[in-house]
């Protein structure tokens, strides 16, 4: 009888040989299960998108708490982002006397890349994590089963309004963030480089294309969808009481942030 039949390679000291492949296999299976779960959730959401199935009260409640209440933190992030772009560019602008380009450079990078990305990461931390924690708590305290027991579809009632609210508010917050970032950049350029707001804005308007702004909005929409799907999926997949809620929030934030960077990379590469 060989070592395989005796199970020595599996269970004995030599079992360490199989530890890595087993670990790898388990991780791949877990990842496949999560990707499949998110895909199924997306399908379930898409088939429930008819206006008659959307709970308007839940939708408006989520628009308010996820979007309106995020405006202050998003505005603060955007204002600093705009300012930081100008501060980073300042030494080169002064060295090459390129004041006429500072408006374009700052707005180009903010609108296309940094604005949507940083807003998405803040949104993920504030709204995505909160959403996973709320759904996870509902799951482990049987509130999701209670909805089913009341003949109310949890996907229609809980998930669809949240996904619509998160996707739409990410786009709205990106527009607000772009405007505030522009203000922050104008102010910093005026104070630090003595570039007048008129020169800054004319530089931006002359050289920026509508698509530079549009690309940022497309990114925001997809970032919002990524955060919404991940946070709802991990929330509804929560098990194991309070520690399980903590694990779900952690997994959701990490998966959403990773997804945002992957989507950003692909979009920047393609578009």
């Amino acid at each position, binding site marked *: 009888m060989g070592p395989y039949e005796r199970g020595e390679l599996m269970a004995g000291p030599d079992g360490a040989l199989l530890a890595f492949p087993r670990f790898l296999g388990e991780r791949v299976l877990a990842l496949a299960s999560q990707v499949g779960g998110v895909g199924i959730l997306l399908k379930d959401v898409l088939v429930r998108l008819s206006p008659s199935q959307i709970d308007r009260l839940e939708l408006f409640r989520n628009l308010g708490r996820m979007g309106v209440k995020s405006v202050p933190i998003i505005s603060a992030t955007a204002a600093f982002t705009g300012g930081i772009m100008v501060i980073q560019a300042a030494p080169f602008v002064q060295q090459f006397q390129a004041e006429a380009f500072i408006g374009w450079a700052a707005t180009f990078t903010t609108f296309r890349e940094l604005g949507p990305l940083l807003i998405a990461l803040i949104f993920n931390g504030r709204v995505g994590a909160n959403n996973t924690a709320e759904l996870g708590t*509902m799951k482990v305290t*049987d509130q999701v*089963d*209670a909805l*089913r*027991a*009341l*003949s*109310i*579809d949890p996907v229609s009632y809980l998930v669809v309004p949240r996904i619509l609210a998160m996707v739409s508010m990410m786009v709205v917050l990106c527009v607000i963030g772009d405007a505030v970032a522009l203000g922050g950049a104008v102010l910093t350029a005026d104070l630090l480089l003595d570039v007048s707001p008129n020169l800054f804005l004319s530089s931006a308007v002359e050289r920026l294309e509508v698509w530079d702004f549009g690309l940022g909005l497309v990114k925001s929409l997809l970032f919002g969808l990524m955060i919404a799907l991940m946070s709802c999926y991990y929330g509804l997949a929560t098990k194991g009481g309070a520690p399980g809620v903590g694990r779900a929030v952690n997994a959701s934030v990490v998966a959403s942030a990773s997804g945002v960077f992957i989507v950003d990379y692909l979009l920047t590469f393609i578009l």
Partner: protein
Amino acid sequence: MSIRIVDVHKSFGEKHILRGVSLEIEPGECFFIIGASGVGKSVIIKHLIGLLRPDKGELYVEGVEVSKLSEKELYPVRMKCAMVFQNSTLFDSMTCAENVALPLRKHRGMSMNEALKEANERLAAVRMERFADAKPAELGDGMQKRVAIARALTLDPSIVLFDEPTTSLDPVSARRTDALIRELCDRYGVTAIVVSHDLTSIFSIADRIAMLYNGTVRLLGTQQDFKTTDDEVVRQFIEGRAEGPMQL
């Protein structure tokens, strides 16, 4: 026949919880399912509304075999067979009135204002109208349970499943809950299936009792049958003795 459970088996991983449970429950009956913790009492009633699916066996709710219905096909069954969960499961983000109004808004096509008006009347029936605008977290366990009962009754179900309705309640609240359950059966003809190990409840309001042990029905009978049984396992349970043949 209101409920018929035929040879139901259910395992969770290696644990074989139900090993062929069969029961028949008459309309308007106040039927108790009792047994030690973890014996599968809650598992049985969750099967009746499709929250769990049996590995084997059949479950009939007012003549409809529910174990193979899809989630969507189960909705009509759940509207006539309501459930009050052990932990109340009120929605934290809503007030008590909004909790009770939710099924009315979703299934009766009522506006929020109409649903809230009716919800206040439903809360009055369980003496909770004063707390209509309170959030569940502001209430004690007993009060939460009464609101949960009001919510379960909003769609006027013919069957109500109670999962340990008196657990964690003070004695007065527990007896009030018992009286409410008995009133549902006597006055409104509702079939009540109560999962419990509260001996006072069992021996004050039950019409019939089934005791689960080792995944099967150990004894099925009236209060009198349980009081006079010679079965040592049953006697140990109803007498609450630590010593005896019962394996936990």
